[in-house]
């Protein structure tokens, strides 16, 4: 991790990207034309709107894989939701990377854009209203944003799988859990029905559910059991990349521990890379190799786990740690971060954290984006004060 070279972005480069980004927004018109041309194609893939019709060509192939050793490399990802004339800037140029077998923690408050990032990687964002405006997602060297939909279908569920936040609603209430797991098995493998059924039962047993329950329906399972089913479904085709979107948020604490243990265990056994989305720093400390602190859809700080936990640089990261109770501290009160996350339809200029930042100065709210600074190898901080003085 340490020797990984991520280019530190200079302000000029940022500016250039910004301009490119602006151009991309104008592509909307071209896109409408593309749609007209692509009518026949859309029939081929989907009758419904959005998913089949999406034209990956919208995001130009101007990005290159930076390090061939990276299994997952997300570069300058920009996602917007448009609703009633307002544009929600959910993800604003986030970049991170991950090697085979590593786990990366995406940490941030609710609404920071973490789930959107995961869904953008899988290309399952509902379009409209969501649109990937810019950026590239390299998985195993291929840019998923450039991939045609029919190839994407082969990747979803097989190479990349996702565990969803709320197990209560993530399962189809009208299908037995066995059928739901079997569906993904049959899509991605040339199994006979018996083989697929056997595989399904094995997956259920792996997550600790007796195979006899495969004929039961989601309403017959408890929340923790449902999450196990969701995990079994995600792991059914031995994915190389697992996107776990707050897999334990909807569960109570004891079940949380079990489910996390299970995910870790399965990850180690299958050598899966994992992106763990959470707002629980304790989980991150136990599970992750790398951490990206997300705020208003931007990476405020990223680096190896120990760099972040032992040497947090960004005021936001420090604020997050400040709001945790400490075992060795006698102080009666926690120090929360004051204020609320910014309105994503109207992000502040410059650093999005500036309005809440105790160290903010005028320069922070200037129009120019804040450059990312590499304070130590592999540890990036997006702050004007980074590495300049010790607070």
């Amino acid at each position, binding site marked *: 991790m340490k020797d990984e070279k991520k280019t530190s972005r200079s302000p000029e480069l940022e500016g250039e990207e910004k301009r490119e980004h602006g151009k991309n927004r104008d592509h909307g018109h071209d896109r409408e034309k593309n749609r007209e041309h692509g009518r026949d194609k859309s029939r081929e*893939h*989907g*009758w*419904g*709107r959005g*998913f*089949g019709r999406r034209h990956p060509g919208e995001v130009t192939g101007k990005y290159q894989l930076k390090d061939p050793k990276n299994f997952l490399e997300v570069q300058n990802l920009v996602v917007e939701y448009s609703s009633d004339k307002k544009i929600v800037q959910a993800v604003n140029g986030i970049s991170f990377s991950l090697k085979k077998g590593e786990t990366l923690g995406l940490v941030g408050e609710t609404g920071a854009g973490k789930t959107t990032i995961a*869904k953008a990687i*899988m290309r*399952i964002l*509902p379009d409209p209203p969501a649109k990937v405006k810019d950026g590239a997602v390299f998985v195993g060297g291929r840019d998923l944003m450039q991939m045609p939909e029919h190839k994407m*279908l*082969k*990747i*979803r*569920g*097989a190479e990349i*799988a*996702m565990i*969803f936040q*709320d197990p209560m*609603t*993530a*399962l*189809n*209430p*009208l*299908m*037995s859990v066995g059928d739901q797991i079997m*569906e*993904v098995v049959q*899509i*991605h493998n040339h199994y006979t029905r018996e083989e697929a059924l056997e595989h399904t039962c094995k997956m259920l047993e792996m997550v600790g559910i007796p195979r006899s329950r495969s004929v039961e*329906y989601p*309403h*017959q399972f408890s929340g923790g059991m449902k999450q196990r089913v*969701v995990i079994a*479904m995600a792991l059914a085709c031995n994915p190389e990349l697992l996107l776990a979107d707050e897999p334990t948020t909807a569960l109570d604490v004891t079940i949380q521990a079990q489910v996390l243990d299970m995910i870790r265990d399965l990850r180690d056994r299958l050598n899966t890379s994992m992106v763990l989305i959470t707002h629980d720093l304790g989980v991150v400390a136990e599970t992750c190799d790398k951490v990206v602190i997300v705020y208003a859809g931007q990476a405020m700080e990223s680096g190896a786990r120990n760099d972040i936990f032992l040497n947090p640089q960004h005021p936001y990261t420090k604020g997050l740690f400040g709001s945790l109770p400490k075992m060795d501290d006698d102080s009666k009160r926690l120090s929360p971060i004051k204020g609320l996350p910014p309105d994503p339809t109207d992000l502040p200029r410059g650093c999005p954290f500036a309005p809440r930042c105790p160290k903010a100065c005028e320069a922070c709210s200037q129009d120019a984006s804040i450059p990312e600074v590499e304070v130590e190898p592999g540890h990036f901080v997006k702050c004007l004060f980074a590495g300049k003085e010790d607070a």
Partner: protein
Amino acid sequence: MWRYILKRLFWLLVIILCVGVLIFSIMYFVPGDPVQILLSGESYTQEYYLEVKHSLGLDKGYFAQLGDYLYQTFIKFDFGTSYTSKVPVMQAIMERLPRTFLLGLFSILISAGIGIPLGVSAGLHRNGFQDQGLLIFAMIFISIPQFWLGLELMLLFSVKLHWLPTSGCATALAWIMPVICNSIGGIAMNARQSRAAVLETVRADFVTTARAKGVAEQKVIWKHMMPNALIPVINAVGNSFANMISGTVVIENLFAFPGIGQYVLNSMGSRDYPAIRACVLLLATFAAVVNLIVDLIYAHLDPRIKAQYIAYGARKKSRGGLAKS
């Protein structure tokens, strides 16, 4: 499950019995003398009046008449003879019922067959032209009164164009306008309901799960989205069938369509008690049976509903077990 069905059948009998008593009482206490109506237009003596009244059994007290009625209807299954036409009521109903039933069935099939696809396509293309168009038409269709639409149709197709007959049910052509009139509100209702149901499911988490599994879009729509969206809609359509049948009164009278609705209305006018009672009882039974069947189909399709029914039976069972031990 069987326990549930038996329970429902038992309640069905209770309901029908109650409806019988209720309709008898209502007709008994409602002002209006069937004998007078029957004899109107001819001069009659007081003796003759009493004689007729006696022959119809209307000179007895309330409870005696009620007992008589319940005995004849529920024990001997004899629904009596019409006061006016002197034809057994059952015979008259059986002659008319198939027509009303078919009218209702066609209307339901058309309103579901057109309304649901329209709603689904609007839901899948939210804010598209299908959606905008549907919302406007649904509003118009829902607010048009049936009788007004019927009159306008008649004016256009019968009076001006001479394409369709104004009344009767003798030819297939005569059925067209009643069916259209009867189903237009249903089309709008079904379209709006299925649109709402689809919109709810489009964003459902399990649909995203299905996409994340690599299921192709067509299959996501037809295998995951549609069953979840449409089972409640189809359930509602089934339940509206009974309403549709009893709601044909307006249509049948408008188009002089010889069905149950027209029969009921005519019988009401002449206070033809046996005919009214038999019709109401029949429609109530019909509604209850259709409801039961629809519920059972719903349970068969949706495991959650089925679980409720089974749990319902199981709870009873366990309570019985406790009492024994």
